[in-house]
């Protein structure tokens, strides 16, 4: 197994954040992530379970219905008829959570601002039972192809795909009940999946992503209806790209309030969002966010926060 590349600056940063726990975190970066699949309920995906069980060892995650951990070699099922038919999709457990936390209803109008490659959009559609409406956007024209293919393969019929820059997104003043911003990030959480995920990591990259993320969260928040909700997520662990982004929107939009995440209690090993970072005091409600550390959860590193637009 290839050893994960961890830049010195990265190690120094997390040594300061985690203290005694840092060694456990660095060790966990070298433990490859257990693959997971998501059964597509929109396509009678459960019929694939028996077939899959003949080929591979899968174990349903008791706190996340429809998601299974795969305890066999990925090559045993990666290109199966069932996957190509859209009966199931390979999807890490952490990346299912933002859609579950947003939990849109079948009558909602939903925006997925940074949608490609489309797995989270598909989860939203599944939760909505393929009803209501999802606008799935991505700024990257190249990634739109993958997004469209994923949605078609999984039988999603309630989605319009747009290609626009997320930071000034506007569809002629249409407002949304729910918005997902799974923001582009430095990808620190991916290191267990891809050993060289941190090859290009630097504090400069983290800062650049944080600037973009602040613009995206403001753009998204302003597109919410009153009482609408937004979920902000990243697959990175840097507080600059997570808690500080949330703190920023809470400061500049007084109608933004952090909301509890019910599923949080069910995820083994999950942590609270930070309310202090580098001697800075952040909004105390940020503790309601979900911080997924690989060494505590055995999952992909992730951050998720739920925000409501309240009446002032």
């Amino acid at each position, binding site marked *: 197994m290839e050893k994960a590349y961890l830049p010195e600056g990265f190690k120094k940063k997390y040594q300061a954040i985690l203290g005694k726990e840092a060694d456990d975190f660095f060790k966990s970066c070298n433990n490859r992530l257990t693959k997971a699949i998501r059964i597509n309920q929109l*396509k*009678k995906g459960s*019929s694939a379970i028996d077939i899959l069980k003949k*080929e591979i060892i899968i174990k349903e995650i008791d706190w996340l219905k429809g998601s299974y951990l795969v305890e066999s070699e990925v090559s*045993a*099922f*990666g*290109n*199966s*008829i069932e996957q*190509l*038919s*859209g*009966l199931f999709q390979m999807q890490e457990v952490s990346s299912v959570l933002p859609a579950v936390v947003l939990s849109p209803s*079948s*009558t909602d*109008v939903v925006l997925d601002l940074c949608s490609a490659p489309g797995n989270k959009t598909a989860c939203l559609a599944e939760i909505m039972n*393929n*009803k*209501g*409406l999802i*606008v799935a956007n991505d700024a990257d024209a190249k990634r*739109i192809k993958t997004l*469209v*293919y994923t*949605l*078609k*393969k999984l*039988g*999603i*019929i*309630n*989605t*319009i*795909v*747009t*290609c*626009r820059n997320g930071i000034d997104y506007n*569809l*002629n003043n*249409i407002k949304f009940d729910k918005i997902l911003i799974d923001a582009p990030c430095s990808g620190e959480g991916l290191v267990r999946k891809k050993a060289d995920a941190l090859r290009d990591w630097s504090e400069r990259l983290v800062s650049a992503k944080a600037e973009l993320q602040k613009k995206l969260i403001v753009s998204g928040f302003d597109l919410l209806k009153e009482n609408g909700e937004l979920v902000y997520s990243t697959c990175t662990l840097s507080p600059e790209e997570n808690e500080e982004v949330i703190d920023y929107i809470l400061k500049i939009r007084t109608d933004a309030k952090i909301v509890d995440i019910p599923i949080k209690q069910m995820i083994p090993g999950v942590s609270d969002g930070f309310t202090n970072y580098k001697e800075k005091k952040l909004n105390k409600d940020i503790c309601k966010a979900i911080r997924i550390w690989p060494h505590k959860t055995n999952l992909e590193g992730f951050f998720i926060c739920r925000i409501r637009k309240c009446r002032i």
Partner: protein
Amino acid sequence: MKIMTESEQNRLLKHLESRFGISEKIFSKFIFLSQGNSSFLISNDKKAEIKKIISQNAETIKSAGIELFSDNKRFIPCSLGFCTFDFKDIMHNFVVIERQQAKDYFEGTTIDVKKIIDNHKNLLSDGYIIAIYNETIIGTLLFEKKQGKLIPNIVYKNKNVK
């Protein structure tokens, strides 16, 4: 992207009924859209919002719902779009295939299956037909009766399908 006129929509519905026996009723929950030569179906739950978005943002919309035909004029179906239907809705011009043929289908290999064609001979005519595997529509094939061949209608060919 634009909303189809009633006559454009009726033309497609007639073809779907005559070619595959798919009842018009199935489409009552959809809005028909078109972009270039292609047609799309989107759930009509949020009709007002969809109409507003489509009419005012046509240039930035890359796709909507499922693609039904990649070429409306020649009625070339989009395989992934047809997978959205229930296999029970298809009355004719379909074949029920086995696992090996389903693998061949996804690998994009021409399926030489005389036996399968014989089993379905009264249900098939030249042109595009629907492939059903394990009670699921997996796509469409081009049927050439004279050659007794079924040619997968897929965009992405896969290798070593399991």
